[in-house]
């Protein structure tokens, strides 16, 4: 998981960007977007968010919610 903030200059847009970035606003990106995030210019501050997801796993109440969480995990493992 990444957090991306536009730290230099005013609002930024263009064909190489997936959205219009407003200064100071933090945008979240999943691991699958790593290549894109790394390609951003030095106008951005990229913060890597440590994998906090596995810890709050005891969502035992709702088995529906647990299944996709496990699925996500295996997908990210494959990707890396």
């Amino acid at each position, binding site marked *: 998981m990444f957090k991306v903030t536009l730290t230099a200059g*005013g*609002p930024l847009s263009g064909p190489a*960007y997936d959205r219009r970035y407003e*200064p100071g606003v933090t945008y979240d990106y999943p691991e699958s977007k790593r290549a894109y995030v790394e390609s951003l210019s*030095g106008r951005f501050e990229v913060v890597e968010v440590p994998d906090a997801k596995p810890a709050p796993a005891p969502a035992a109440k709702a088995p529906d919610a647990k299944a996709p969480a496990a699925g996500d995990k295996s997908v990210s493992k494959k990707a890396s």
Partner: protein
Amino acid sequence: MSNSDILARVLVQKGVLTDADLSGGATLNAAQREDLADLTIAAFGLAEHATVEKIYDTWDYDSIELTGRYAELDNGTESAGRKPSSYKLTLDPVPLKTVLTLQDSFLRKLATKPIPEEQKAKILAEAQGIAMANDIDRMILYSNTLGPSIKEADFLNNGSGHATNRVKDTTFSEFNGLIAAADASGSAILTHDAASSSDLGLVLREMYKNLPPAYRTGKANKQDLRYYMPSDLYENLKSQLQKRQTHYGDWVLTKGQGESEEAIFFNGILCVELPLFDINPYVVEHITMNGTTAKNLKYKPISASTFYANAAALGSTATAPYVDTTDYVLNTTNGTVAVAASGSAIGNTDSVKYMYQTLPQIFLTKKSNFIIGVSVNDMLMETERHANKGATDFVTRTRYSYGFVKAGWVSRAINVADTVIASY
């Protein structure tokens, strides 16, 4: 006819200067200062396309803005009223001087000319016209409070100075010019990254779309708007328009060039070419390194041949720039830089000053939003005689500043390709 020729002619015609002004080392009187301010302003490349104000010291421009809805139904009840927001532009002029040292042998040659006063005036006009107006144009584009790095020989410009080692350019560090202001943290200037697109039509339209809607409504607004672009890019735009097999394409091909040059409009907005705005503008940034991990530069792609790295604390001592591959690893395509794996003079967490050239940029704003202030009280012209050296210094002084009334009304394009689109 060059700026200096125009100025020399006008200086004499207007009676701004006489022999007495020059030989006595006298400063200018009030009327002469006003005239000289007019002449300097006339020499600006930006003069026609910015609002140039004669100021007398620090200058404030107050304005109000009405945002949101202001109209309300008049139904007979008392209204609480609505408050406008206000903002202020303060120009704090920066002092500049030019010192032109001329040997007697050179002045003797001038004295043989039919009108010595005119020739002498021309010398001063050179100083004003070239050194002041042109350099001010450049400063407005390239100044950066981080301090650009420059070859010492270019900075001193008097025959001394190291040919390759670099110093901090303190003259261009007084304020943030257009590019630095747009790149600064918290800037309100909107940026469109063209990502190396050569379709100027598309880029110019995207820039327009980035302007706040309130700034686009009304015919008057469009007439007041200007695209400011490097001279070479302006030629690229003309080439692009010429490709259209239409009346306008032919018009650009014939009238839009040479002596009878007529203005080029795009989307109803006047395009202004700035000859001193390099096709590959200079930028400077400080980056705190992270060892061999690549750090992103603000622009890409960039040119390795005009890339200079020095310690961020670079000062007035001429210092050799760091060396590509030995000290740092530069990726020109991706616009990244990293500390070299071994033997680098750059520490893993050092702050490094990078000075380089990027792809062309374009600015869009209203002429009335772009203010240049020239301080009339500080217009000085003096001569200083060095009998022992057989030389005379011609000294001119001025103070000036620039700013946008509202930075949010400025739109910029970066990373525009310097090529003409194949078909249009």
